[in-house]
C-alpha cells in the first residue's frame, strides 16, 4: 500500500498535473467562451525550478506528519498533522466515553454530552467513531472554582483510546486563574486533542484545528432556546441610546486597562458606559479616585433597559477575552462592538462576524464613538438581523453550540463536502444543510432568489398505497389520472406499503407520465418521506391513495409552490394551540380562522425535506412515528417550520378532504381510521413529544389561504384559468 502510494507520487512529482476530463470536454467544446485565440495566447507560469525533483516527495504524508509533530510538539497542530483522517472514512460519527460512576460532571457539561448522545452523529461503537469526546468534565479548569474537577490528568491519560488526544475534542470554558489567568493552563496536557474553548486568543489558537466557542452561562438552555429579542425591523431603528455597557471594572491586573478607560467615551447622553468597582472582597483597598462616582452612576441604570434600548453594545474583554456580554447583546439584537484584542471570535472559521458586529481596537478606544456614528441605518438594519440569525441558528442553546462545533469538524473531515461561507452565514444556516445531499445550492429550497434560479418546472407525485386492492379503487385510478394530466407532472411514484406483492403491471392504469412502483422495505409510515432516487424533481407532491384532487387543483398548488419552494403547500390544514387547563399542546382539526399544519396526504414540498426527515432527524422520532402508524405529517410540519421559521401555505380546494369531510358532514361514519379517538389522541401526544424533542414549539400560524386570482369572482368561468376548482361537486365520493 505504502509503496504504491509513493510510486504514484513520484510519478507525478514533476509538475504534477492530473487532468480530469469528466464531462468537461463536452462543456468546453460547446463553446464556453473559449476560442482559438485564447488558446494560443496562454502562457505558462511554470518554470524550470518547478520541475526539479525534491527528496521530500519520497516521503509519504504520514511520515511527514510524524516528522513535523516531533518538531513542533502539539503547539502547531493542524488537521493534517495531528488528526487521523483514516478513522473517518465513512459517515462522520462521534463517540462519547461512558460516564464513570461517581464522576462529578457539571450541569453544563452534562448538557453537552447529552446533546452529542442525542444527535445523529452519535455512535456507541468506538470503532466506528471519527471523533471522541471524554466524559470527564473539563469545562472549568479554574482551580478556585467550585466546578473544578480534580485528578483530570490521570483520568484523561487513562482513557483507553486517548492516544495523546488524537481525534479527541476537549470542551472548555474557563482556564487559568487569578491573578494572571494563563489561557492554556488547563492543568492537564491536552496533547493533540482539538480544543473547543471559550476566550481563545490568536496567540494560542491553532487555526483550523481548535474551535473557539462562546462563553455561555450555566443555565443556558439545552435545546430550543429563547428566540432573539428582535421582533420588529423599524426603520430607522430609533433606539434611545447609541452605545451602552454595564459591567465590572478591574482596578488592577490583567484586562483592567480596557474597562478602566471606558469613562473617556461615556457621555451620559447616548453613550452610556457604566462600571462598578464594587466586586470582590478587597475592592476598597485598590479603589481609585473615580470609583465613588462610577459606582453611583452604575446604580442609576438597569442593564436590561439599556440593552434593549441601544443600537450598539460594547463588549470589552474581562479578565479573560470572552465575556457573557457577547451572547447577551447578540440575543438582544444590540450590535456587539468588540473591544477584546486578540480574541478569536466564536466559530470564526465559519461565521463572518463582520456581518453582525463591529470590531474595535482596545488601543483606539477614542475612535469608537465616531466609528459607530458612521454606520448607516441600512447597515444597522442588516447587522441587527444578522445578530438574530446567528443567535437563533448557532448560539441560543447548548445543543446548537455543540452541533456547530461538530459540523465544523465534519466540514474539515469531509473536505469536498464542506459548506461554504455563503451557506454558514445565511438563513437557514449550515446545521440544517446535509452536505451529502448535493454540492449545488440550486438544489436546496432556500436560495432560489439569493442565487437567481427558479425551482424545477415539474414535480413527482408520490402516492402512498396502504390497501391491497387499491388498484381496483375508482378513487385511486381517478387520482392517478388527474395527476398525470397535469402538464407539470414528471412521474408518479407509488410507494407500495402493503404486505402483499405489487400488483402486476396490467393492473395499473395507463397514464400520460411514467409510473413507478417502489415496494417499500419496511412497510412503515415513515417510508413515505424517504429520499428515493426515483424522485428527480425538486418538487414532490405527496398524496394519500384516497386523496380527491382535480388537475386544476394540482396545477394551481404547484404554481403557488414555485413561489414558496421552501414551504409545504397543501390543501387541508390543522392547528395547534396551547391548552392552558392541561398545560400542554393541543391539536385541532376543527375549522379555524388560522392554521399551522398542512396535511401531507395532499401537499407539495421540496424533496430536500425528505433528506432532512430521513437523515437529519434522529432515528428515534421516525421509530415513534412508525410505532404509532401516525403523525408523520405532523413531524414533517414541525421539521419544515423548524428550519424556515415560517408557516406552511394552504391553497384552496374544491372538494372537502376526507378527514374534514368525515367529521363535519358525516359524523356517524366509523370506517375511517381518522375517526377513531385513539388516532386523534395519538396526534395530541405526538404534538407534545415533538415539541419536547425540538425544545420549543416550531409551528407558526397563518391566517390566509391562497386562491386563484379570479377565484369565485362574478365573471364568466371561461375567463378563469383554474375552472375545476370552482365547479361544485354535490357530494364528494367517499369510496
Amino acid at each position, binding site marked *: 500500500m505504502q509503496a504504491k502510494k509513493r510510486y*504514484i*507520487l513520484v*510519478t*507525478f512529482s*514533476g*509538475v*504534477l*498535473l*492530473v*487532468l*480530469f*476530463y*469528466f*464531462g*468537461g*470536454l463536452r*462543456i468546453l467544446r460547446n463553446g*464556453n467562451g*473559449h476560442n482559438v485565440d485564447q488558446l494560443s495566447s*496562454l502562457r*505558462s*507560469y511554470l518554470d524550470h525550478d518547478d520541475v*526539479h525533483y*525534491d527528496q*521530500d516527495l519520497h516521503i509519504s504524508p504520514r511520515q511527514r506528519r510524524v516528522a513535523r509533530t516531533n518538531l513542533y510538539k502539539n503547539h502547531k497542530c*493542524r488537521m493534517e498533522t495531528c488528526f487521523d*483522517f483514516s478513522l473517518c472514512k465513512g459517515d462522520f460519527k462521534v463517540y462519547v466515553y461512558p460516564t464513570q460512576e461517581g464522576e462529578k460532571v457539571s450541569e453544563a457539561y452534562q448538557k453537552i454530552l447529552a446533546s452529542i448522545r442525542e444527535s445523529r452523529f452519535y455512535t456507541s461503537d468506538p470503532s466506528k467513531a471519527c471523533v471522541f469526546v471524554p466524559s470527564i468534565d473539563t469545562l472549568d479548569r479554574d482551580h478556585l472554582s467550585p466546578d473544578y474537577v480534580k485528578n483530570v490528568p490521570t483520568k484523561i491519560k487513562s482513557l483507553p483510546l486517548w492516544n495523546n488526544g488524537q481525534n479527541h475534542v476537549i470542551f472548555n470554558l474557563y482556564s487559568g486563574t487569578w491573578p494572571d489567568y494563563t489561557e492554556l493552563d488547563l492543568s492537564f496536557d491536552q496533547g493533540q486533542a482539538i480544543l473547543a474553548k471559550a476566550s481563545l486568543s490568536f496567540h494560542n489558537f491553532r487555526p483550523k484545528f481548535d474551535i473557539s466557542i462562546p462563553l455561555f452561562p450555566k443555565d443556558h438552555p439545552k435545546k430550543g432556546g429563547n428566540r432573539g429579542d428582535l421582533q*420588529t*425591523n*423599524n426603520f430607522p431603528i*430609533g433606539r434611545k441610546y447609541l452605545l451602552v455597557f454595564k459591567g465590572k471594572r478591574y482596578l488592577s491586573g490583567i484586562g483592567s486597562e480596557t474597562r478602566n478607560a471606558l469613562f473617556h467615551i461615556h457621555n451620559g447622553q447616548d453613550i452610556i458606559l457604566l462600571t462598578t468597582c464594587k466586586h470582590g472582597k478587597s475592592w476598597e483597598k485598590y479603589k481609585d479616585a473615580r470609583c465613588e462616582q462610577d459606582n453611583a452612576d452604575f446604580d442609576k441604570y438597569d442593564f436590561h433597559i439599556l440593552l434593549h434600548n441601544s443600537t450598539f453594545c460594547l463588549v470589552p474583554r474581562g479578565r479573560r477575552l470572552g465575556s457573557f456580554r457577547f451572547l447577551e447583546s447578540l440575543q438582544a439584537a444590540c450590535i456587539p462592538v468588540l473591544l477584546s484584542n486578540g480574541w478569536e471570535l466564536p466559530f470564526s472559521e465559519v461565521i*463572518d462576524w*463582520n456581518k453582525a458586529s463591529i470590531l474595535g481596537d482596545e488601543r483606539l478606544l477614542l475612535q469608537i464613538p465616531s*466609528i459607530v456614528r458612521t*454606520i448607516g441605518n*441600512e447597515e444597522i438594519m442588516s447587522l441587527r438581523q444578522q445578530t438574530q*440569525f446567528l443567535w437563533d441558528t448557532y448560539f441560543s442553546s447548548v445543543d446548537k453550540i455543540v452541533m456547530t462545533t461538530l459540523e465544523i469538524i465534519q466540514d474539515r473531515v469531509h*473536505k469536498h463536502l464542506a459548506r461554504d*461561507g*455563503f451557506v454558514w452565514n445565511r*438563513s437557514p444556516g449550515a446545521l440544517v444543510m446535509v452536505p451529502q445531499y*448535493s*454540492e449545488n445550492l440550486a438544489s436546496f429550497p432556500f436560495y432560489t*432568489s*439569493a442565487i*437567481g434560479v427558479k425551482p424545477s418546472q415539474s414535480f413527482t407525485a408520490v402516492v402512498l398505497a396502504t390497501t391491497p386492492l387499491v388498484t381496483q379503487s375508482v378513487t385511486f385510478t381517478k387520482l392517478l389520472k388527474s395527476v398525470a394530466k397535469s402538464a407539470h407532472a414528471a412521474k408518479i411514484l407509488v410507494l407500495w406499503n402493503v404486505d402483499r406483492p405489487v400488483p402486476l403491471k396490467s393492473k395499473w392504469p395507463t397514464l400520460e407520465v411514467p409510473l413507478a412502483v417502489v415496494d417499500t422495505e419496511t412497510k412503515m409510515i415513515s417510508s413515505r418521506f424517504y429520499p428515493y432516487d426515483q424522485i428527480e424533481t425538486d418538487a414532490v407532491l405527496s398524496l394519500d391513495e384516497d386523496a380527491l384532487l382535480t388537475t386544476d387543483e394540482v396545477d394551481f398548488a404547484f*404554481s403557488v409552490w414555485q*413561489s414558496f419552494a421552501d414551504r409545504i403547500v397543501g390543501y387541508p390544514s390543522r392547528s395547534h394551540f396551547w391548552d392552558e387547563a392541561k398545560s400542554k399542546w393541543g391539536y385541532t382539526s376543527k375549522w379555524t*380562522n388560522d392554521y399551522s399544519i398542512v396535511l401531507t396526504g395532499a401537499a407539495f414540498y421540496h424533496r430536500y425535506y425528505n433528506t432532512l426527515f430521513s437523515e437529519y432527524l434522529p432515528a428515534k422520532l421516525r421509530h415513534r412515528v412508525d410505532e404509532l402508524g401516525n403523525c408523520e405529517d405532523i413531524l414533517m410540519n414541525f421539521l419544515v417550520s423548524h428550519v*424556515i421559521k*415560517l408557516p406552511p401555505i394552504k*391553497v384552496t380546494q374544491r372538494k372537502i378532504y376526507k378527514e374534514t369531510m368525515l367529521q363535519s358532514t358525516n359524523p356517524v361514519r366509523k370506517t375511517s381510521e381518522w375517526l377513531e379517538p385513539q388516532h386523534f389522541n395519538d396526534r395530541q401526544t405526538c404534538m407534545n413529544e415533538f415539541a419536547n424533542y425540538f425544545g420549543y414549539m416550531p409551528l407558526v400560524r397563518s391566517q*390566509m*389561504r*391562497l*386562491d*386563484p*386570482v379570479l*377565484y369565485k369572482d362574478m365573471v364568466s368561468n371561461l375567463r378563469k*384559468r383554474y375552472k375545476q376548482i370552482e365547479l361544485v361537486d354535490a357530494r364528494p365520493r367517499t369510496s
Partner: protein
Amino acid sequence: MESESILVLDRCQSVNEDVLPMNKLCHGLHEFQYPQILQEATFCIIVRGARLGQTALSDAMKAGCIPVVLSDTYVMPFSDVLDWKRAAVILNEEDLDQIPSILTSISPAGISSMRKQVKFFWNHYFSSITAITMTTLKVINDRVFPYAATTYDEWNIPQPDPGVTSPLFLPLIPPRSQGFTAVILTYDRVDSLFKVIMEISQTPSLSKVLVVWNNQQKMPPPAAEWPKINKPLKVVQTKENKLSNRFYPYDEIETEAVLAIDDDIIMLTPDELEFGFEVWREFPDRLVGYPGRLHLYDEETGKWKYESEWTNDLSMVLTGAAFYHKYFSHLYTNSMPGNIKNWVDEHMNCEDIAMNFIVSNYTGKAPIKVTPRKKFKCPECTGEQIISADQSHMVERSECITRFADIYGRMPLQTVEFRADPVLYKDPFPEELKRFRDVGSL
C-alpha cells in the same frame, strides 16, 4: 487510477535535461501543448512539489480549470478573504485514491458554478502582479479598518450576481401590537379625505393617521374641523406638490407597516384593511395591496404592456391602498435608479408602478394581492369620461413599464397566479365564526 477520463502529465523524456521545453508536457510518448491542454480539462489536480504552492495553480485557474489541491498544511492564497470551497476541491494528500469518486459525484451545475468562481477569482485577484499586489493591500486595509471591511459577499460572489437577498431577510412575523400608520396624500378633496379618515379609523390595528397635505396654495383645515377619531392624527405640509411625497419616510411614521391610501378610497371595509395588515405581517418584505395589475410583453411592438382587471395573473398591486414596510419608503426616496422619481413627479403618474418595481427589484418577490377586489371606484367620475381617460391612462402606464424596465436594465417584476383570502373565505361555514366577514366585494 488512470482511465480514459484522466490524463497524467509529466515532463517529456527529451534529449537534453537542461533545456526542458516548458510549453510541452508528456504522457508517455504523447506530447501536449502546455498550458493549452488545461483548457480541455474540467479539473486539474495539483499536488505539492518541492514547495507547497505550485505555479500550476495559476496555470489551471487561468485556463478556467477547477483546481483539485493536494498539499497538506498549505495555506491557500488570500485564504483570509477568499472562500476556496467555492472554487476548488481541496483534499488531503492521502485521499489521492478517492479523487475519481469525489470528482464524479459533483453535478454539472456544481461544476459550472465552480468554474465561474475560478474565473472570478483569477480575473479579480490573480491575473496580474498588480492584481496580486492590490489584493494584498486590500486584505491589510480590511484588517486596519475592520468595521469598514470588504464583505464576504463582495470578495467571493461573482458580479453581476443574478440573485437578490431581501433587505428584510430575517424570517420574522412582526407582532400585531405595533399596528400600522395610514399615510394619506391629499390636495384639496377635504370632504372625501375626512370620509376616508372616518372609515379607516374603524380598523383595529390602525395606530396613527398621517395626512400629507400636498397643496401649497391652501392651508389644511383648522384642527377643530377634522374628524374626531380615537387614533392620533397628524398633518404634515409639503413644500412642493409632488406625487413622490406619498412615499416619503416621514419621521412621524413610527411603525414598520405603512398603509398608503388615497384620499378617495372609501370602499375598503375595516375587515379588508385588517386582513390586509395581517397578510402584510406574514410577508413584511412585500407590497400587499388590493387590485392587482399585470405587465405583459408585446412581441409585435417589442414593448411592455400594462394590463388591468380580470387577468389570471398579477405582478403589481395598486398603491391607492397598499401596505408596505417603511424601509421601502426610504428606498423609493433615496435609492430610486435613474430619473424615475423625477419622471413620476413630472407626469403625475406611475408612482405605484415605480414602487412595485423597486420592491421587486430589491427582494426578487412578487407583491401579494388580498381579497377579490378588482378596482378602486372613483365616485365622481361619470361613464364616458372614465373610458377615454382610461385609454390614455393605459397607454401612459404601458410606457412607464417599458421606460422603467430600460432603466433597470431588466424586468424585475415577478408574476404570480394567486391572491390571499381569509382561511375560511366563501367556505360553507357559519359567517359569525369567521374572523374576516366583510370581505369580498369587487
